[in-house]
């Protein structure tokens, strides 16, 4: 170490005062510089000037278009809009002077009294007025259940989840349709007896009392028995007359149909998609080929043609006497279609799992289904939650297509509300479309935010 002569050089003993950052780099000026002027103020060379001027022009254009359109929208939706119709003159409330009303001639804004008058129709369609409480109860139950599942601090989430997947659909179906469907008690009783017998055989087989062959197939026999019993018991439950007035699905409409189609599609497409994805990655050539053809077929055709097919061809495919109503046919189309898309998302997750996980599960002596259920699928599905939610959003938006085959979903109800001549005015269509668009936006945007939230949470927990 060299010696320093401390007397000859100045050595600072106190820290220098921290200077504020240059004025053009902090505060509002700095922010504006970084986020606006940086891209339009570079004139150091010919090329840079051209670029800056082009950017400047583009920025001015975009802000002009953005601000005028935003102002136009604000004016249309809030400022100039007609909000009430106190005298009950209906369509004339939204007419200009030259059309025979009282508004100035250059008036062009939303006609909200029309939308308010149609709110009930948009929500329930032609569902009988006195029975609306049933729809409300179903909706509230569903809402409560979903919130319970989404908020992680609440207890018993697993139990609520199981109830939402088992009891809730039964309750919802009985409430919405009124239950009391036809049932053949003799047949059901016979099937239940067969089911019980199969379960007994399965149990005996498990204990090895019926020979080797039976013990190997015991679990399958038991499963078949249980499925039979569950199916028949459900049939019996639906046939119980709970004293509710029956409401056919032809009377459903509006947001109710949108939600029924979307939720059924979502709930069914996930397990179906998982099975298809596993099939496509199976080492059995036949299963792989069939699943691939199935998936690629549905992904290759537009949903509209699927719905057309469902509505005109399903009646031809079924034996005589079996009749599916329009909603059921649309549901089948939507389910098959979304299952194919879901399968591809799940397959992406399966492919992202490290090969070592599969091998480790095999080394532990787990069977195929055990390793899938306990090792592979939990990881694969968490991995693709954003993709799954995106598929849900797509499915939710696609439910509007059922209006083309004659179901009155939210959009279809909006469209048929426009046909009401007692509210006819030039702004009728645009008002109701804006309102319907807003509802769809709230649902889809909410789902996409939740997906981003989950993605962030998962990427945090993964980076540990």
């Amino acid at each position, binding site marked *: 170490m060299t010696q320093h002569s401390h007397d000859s050089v100045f050595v600072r003993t106190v820290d220098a005062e921290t200077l504020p950052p240059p004025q053009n780099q902090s505060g509002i000026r700095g922010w504006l510089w970084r986020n606006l002027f940086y891209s339009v103020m570079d004139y150091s060379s010919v090329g840079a000037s051209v670029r800056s001027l082009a950017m400047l022009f583009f920025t001015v254009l975009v802000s002009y278009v953005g601000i005028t359109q935003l102002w136009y929208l604000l004016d249309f939706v809030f400022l100039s809009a007609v909000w009430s119709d106190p005298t009950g003159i209906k369509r004339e409330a939204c007419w200009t002077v030259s059309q025979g009303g009282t508004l100035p001639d250059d008036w062009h804004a939303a006609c909200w009294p029309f939308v308010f008058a149609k709110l009930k129709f948009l929500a329930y369609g032609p569902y009988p007025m006195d029975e609306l409480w049933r729809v409300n109860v179903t909706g509230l139950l569903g809402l409560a259940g979903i919130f319970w599942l989404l908020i992680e601090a609440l207890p018993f989430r697993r139990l609520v989840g199981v109830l939402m997947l088992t009891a809730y659909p039964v309750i919802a179906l009985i409430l919405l349709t009124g239950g009391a469907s036809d049932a053949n008690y003799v047949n059901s009783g016979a099937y239940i007896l067969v089911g019980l017998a199969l379960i007994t055989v399965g149990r005996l087989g498990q204990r090895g009392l019926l020979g080797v062959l039976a013990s190997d197939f015991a679990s399958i026999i038991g499963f078949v028995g249980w499925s039979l019993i569950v199916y028949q018991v459900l049939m019996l439950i639906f046939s119980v007359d709970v004293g509710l007035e029956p409401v056919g699905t032809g009377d459903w409409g509006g947001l109710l149909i949108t939600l029924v189609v979307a939720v059924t599609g979502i709930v069914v497409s996930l397990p179906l998609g998982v099975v298809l994805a596993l099939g496509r990655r199976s080492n059995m050539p036949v299963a792989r080929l069939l699943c691939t053809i199935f998936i690629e077929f549905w992904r290759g055709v537009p949903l509209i043609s699927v719905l057309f097919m469902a509505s005109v061809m399903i009646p031809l495919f*079924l034996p005589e006497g079996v009749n599916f109503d329009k909603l059921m046919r649309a549901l089948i189309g939507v389910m098959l279609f979304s299952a194919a898309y879901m399968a591809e998302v799940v397959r992406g997750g399966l492919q992202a799992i490290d090969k070592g996980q599969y091998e480790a599960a095999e080394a532990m002596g787990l069977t195929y289904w055990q390793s899938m259920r306990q090792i592979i699928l939990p990881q694969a599905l968490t991995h693709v939650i954003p993709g799954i939610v995106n598929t849900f959003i797509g499915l939710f938006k696609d439910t509007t297509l059922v209006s083309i085959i004659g179901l009155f979903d939210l959009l279809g109800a909006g469209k048929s509300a426009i046909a009401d001549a007692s509210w006819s005015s030039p702004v009728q269509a645009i008002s109701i479309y804006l309102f319907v668009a807003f509802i769809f936006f709230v649902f889809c945007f909410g789902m996409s935010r939740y997906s981003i939230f989950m993605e962030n949470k998962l990427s945090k927990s993964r980076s540990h």
Partner: protein
Amino acid sequence: MSINSNNLSAFINDSRVRNIGFQVLIISALVFSVWWLMDNTLTNLENRGKSLGFGFLVQTAGFEISDTLGTWLFDYEVGVSSYTDIFFIGITNTLLIAVLGIILASIIGFTVGIMRLSNNFILKYFATVYVEVIRNVPLLLQLFFWYFAVLGVLPDARSQLQVFGGLGGLNITGLYLPAPVFQTGFGLVFLAFSVSVIASIIVAHISKKKQDETGQGFKLVLIIPALIISVTGIAYVIMGGPLDWTFPEFKNTGPIFKRGFQSDAGMVLVPEMLAVLLALTLYTAGFIAEIVRAGIVAVSRGQTEASYSVGLRPGVTLRLIVIPQAMRIIIPPLTSQYLNLTKNSSLAVAIAYPELVSIFAGTALNQVGKEIEMIFMVMSTYLVISLITSFFMNWFNARVKIVER
């Protein structure tokens, strides 16, 4: 006995045997359900007095189709054209929308996607709002919005809104534009144009080779336009300008029912087509923008920094370093967006633009009632389009893929 049963147990627990057994089970279930469905269908058809067959394809169709590229190409005439013609008119109109939509949506989508990454907050927020709103509202609703709420309030058939400085006009019956009229000899001009394009491709290849060897290529930005314009222009002049235009003719005098745009001058884009094109383009552009943004963000920052440190300028960096790598990430989802756009063009059925689903699986099906045959034809068409696009894009993807050594 016990040895025997052990053998049996070993046999049925052998995973190979189980696999084969399971597959046999699947095949028999499949065969049975197909047989069951066919049997039901045949019985049902018999009960309704129908039969299977494609004989209807040569029958003549008796309904009007609005003027579109398809009806123009196939000279559609009510009572003369067959259902085969209708099928091809539908395909033409679907492909027209698909091609135009893909080009426009790519332009808007790439612009908006890059805007979202801009350091100019006005552009950034504008792009963000656009993407969020467009992606979260159903396409069908947007289609209705454009068709009923925007195009529905245009001036009526007796008045017009001038566009492109009076060259075209817009009213509720559609957008009227000048139409080209090809005289004899235009084929040769087109041939000259094709030859010049092929020559440009060859020049570009030579330039690339020279660039790789010596570091100096040609000034392609100047050479290629000059080549194309001069060759095509010379051919055009030699053939005596074999291209005329007819302009839309708007009358607001004379008999009231003859006012408005005349049907024999210029060409018309029907409002249905405009609405479908607007809705599909803007909707798909929102998705493409997100794909482009994700692709560019995914190129690691080190690539840009490395490029700067070897002295490349920002523009060159973007063109030669970032975009080629981003394209590899962008292309697969972009392909599926293009396919989605093509399939979504079938929503046009809701506003009766005469594309495949609308006229063939809709109007024609109601007339003929051959559900199975017609829906089979429609679905196969879409499947073929999907497969061709996938093959092409896979080929392209394989070309730009990283070559690992």
